[in-house]
């Protein structure tokens, strides 16, 4: 046993020694993301791990450090540790919250490292070299336009909103712009907090409150699960369809199978973290310019194109 341990320790020391010797040529990319505390974040973690595993093979002179944080404070610590102990050349960060992460990420940028910010922007502009963003207003607009096309004669809908945040406000504003002039009337909006249980309760109450609901904009696939369960339990048949969002694999599957209650979905892909890591790797290894803003559009998923958005191995 002791022999094995010595052997292990020895080989470990060797590898570490080798790593420091190589440090001159090797570049280190730090990836800091929120932990998998809900479905979308789970998918994002999966795609981050996939991307790191793949890129380590493609670029032998790149090293990756992946850290997941369960709160903003932990994420700040992670980033400080990466700077202090791993000497990172680039940082890919999906900030837990904009405000608390701005100063630490700014410090990384000032130390000369490349900074890629994903999805949630920092509260000071111009810190990052590259910003890979989802399109929240576009997400709402695509959803709204789909609703309008699906209900040409107008109709009555209810809307479930997410956790009260800028993201949610932008989506709802986009949606309202998308349905403008279509004759669609929003009966009510309540926060389902991107949570199945909360949306189940809210939908039950919507069903008690309104005798006629033509369609539901659940605005998120997790919330759509709760909404569908509430509708199913009530036995009501006035609701023609439910539109979710994000691209959860179970919902994409239902779109693929031509489920009439889930005729479509709108993507807000958690795999955007992979785009960010990939572009950062290009920035580190080539002279191709990748700085700027990269906006990932929200795409309407219909039975015709659903297959290319279906990732059966992802947890989301």
């Amino acid at each position: 046993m002791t022999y094995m341990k010595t052997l292990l320790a020895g080989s470990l020391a060797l590898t570490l020694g080798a790593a420091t010797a190589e440090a001159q040529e090797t570049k280190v990319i730090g990836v800091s993301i929120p932990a998998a505390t809900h479905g979308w974040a789970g998918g994002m973690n999966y795609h981050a791990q996939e991307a790191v595993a793949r890129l380590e093979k493609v670029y032998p002179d790149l090293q990756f450090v992946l850290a997941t944080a369960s709160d903003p404070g932990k994420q700040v610590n992670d980033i400080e540790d990466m700077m202090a102990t791993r000497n990172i050349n680039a940082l890919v960060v999906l900030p837990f919250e904009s405000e608390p992460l701005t100063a630490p990420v700014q410090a990384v940028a000032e130390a000369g490292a490349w900074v890629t910010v994903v999805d949630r922007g920092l509260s000071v502009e111009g810190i990052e070299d590259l910003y890979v963003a989802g399109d929240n207003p576009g997400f709402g607009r695509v959803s709204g336009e789909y609703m309008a096309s699906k209900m040409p004669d107008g109709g009555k809908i209810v809307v479930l909103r997410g956790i009260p945040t800028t993201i949610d406000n932008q989506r709802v504003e986009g949606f309202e712009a998308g349905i403008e002039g279509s004759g669609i009337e929003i009966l009510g909006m309540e926060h389902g907090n991107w949570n199945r249980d909360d949306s189940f309760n809210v939908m039950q109450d919507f069903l008690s409150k309104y005798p006629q609901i033509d369609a539901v904009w659940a605005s998120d696939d997790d919330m759509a699960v709760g909404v569908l369960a509430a509708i199913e339990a009530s036995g009501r048949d006035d609701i023609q369809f439910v539109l979710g969002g994000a691209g959860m694999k179970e919902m994409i599957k239902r779109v693929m199978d031509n489920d009439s209650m889930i005729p479509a979905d709108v993507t807000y892909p958690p795999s955007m973290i992979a785009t960010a890591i990939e572009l950062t790797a290009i920035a580190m290894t080539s002279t191709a310019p990748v700085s700027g803003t990269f906006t990932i559009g929200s795409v309407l998923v219909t039975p015709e194109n659903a297959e290319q958005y279906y990732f059966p191995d992802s947890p989301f």
Partner: protein
Amino acid sequence: MAMDTTTPASRRSLPSMSVLGPIIALVALVVIGALLNPNFLGAANITNVLARSAFIGIIAVGTTFVITAGGLDLSVGSMAAFIAGLMILVMNAALPTLGVGVPIILLGMATALAAGLIAGLINGFLITTLGIEAFIVTLGTMGIYRSLVTWLADGGTLSLDFGLRTFYRPVYFDGILGISWPIIVFALVVIGGEILMSRSRFGRHCAATGSNEHVAHYSNVNVNRTRLFTYAMLGMLVGVATIMYVPRLGSASASTGVLWELEAIAAVIIGGTVLKGGFGRVWGTVIGVLILSMIDNILNLTDLVSPYLNGAIQGVIIVLAVILQREAKAKG
């Protein structure tokens, strides 16, 4: 003995505000709800509210005993999520051998009860035998169970097999004579809890332990065993709540049962149980649970206030309920 002679006299005149307060609040809410929306008192809405109160309610009955005995349990929400995840995994794993049917449901239920009992015993053991502060122990296990369910679900969502879910679904949505199962189970737990609290030796031991540990010890109450029992019982009840929860959506994830522990504690305190221990009231807890879920329901049914303020209104009502009770105590 002096207490014994005065209590019946004061009872005959008028129950104190600490008893009336929560009841008045509940009645006021029902009246407001009915005035604001005619559907509020409809059978469907009442069933919805009672059925969704059942999870927190069943757990809160257990919490009442823990708090009465001078303890605290912050881990129940995470524990419920973990047990739900475990139950789903076990049932999915047993599906090829057992097939869809009653045995597999019973297996799932047994898993939930056993896991709850073990989890409760672990909390109780750490708190009583090792003598660690209940707040710290359950804060620790809260983090552990929450991480475990995230890990089990690989960061995503654990879902019950579709066929199995269809078979299991009636446990939440069906019932006897139009009363759904969660409501029936909730009622049974409350009746059992009320009898245990006010009519049994165990209930008196809980109150004695919570009001003064040393006196209770010298009065031949096994303080540690009483506390251990309260945590084990709470664990079991979390298992029962999970049995009712899983058939509803057939899934569990890291966002399952978030803040249930605080809702349960709030319900217990609104109902008149003393947070420091020594006195517990199971029926009061039921009123507390109903008040909390009715506020949510009324706010959803009306457009009276911005949905951003739902939490604030709940907070105000919690504080008001406790102030009512304190004033009554100060006067009486």
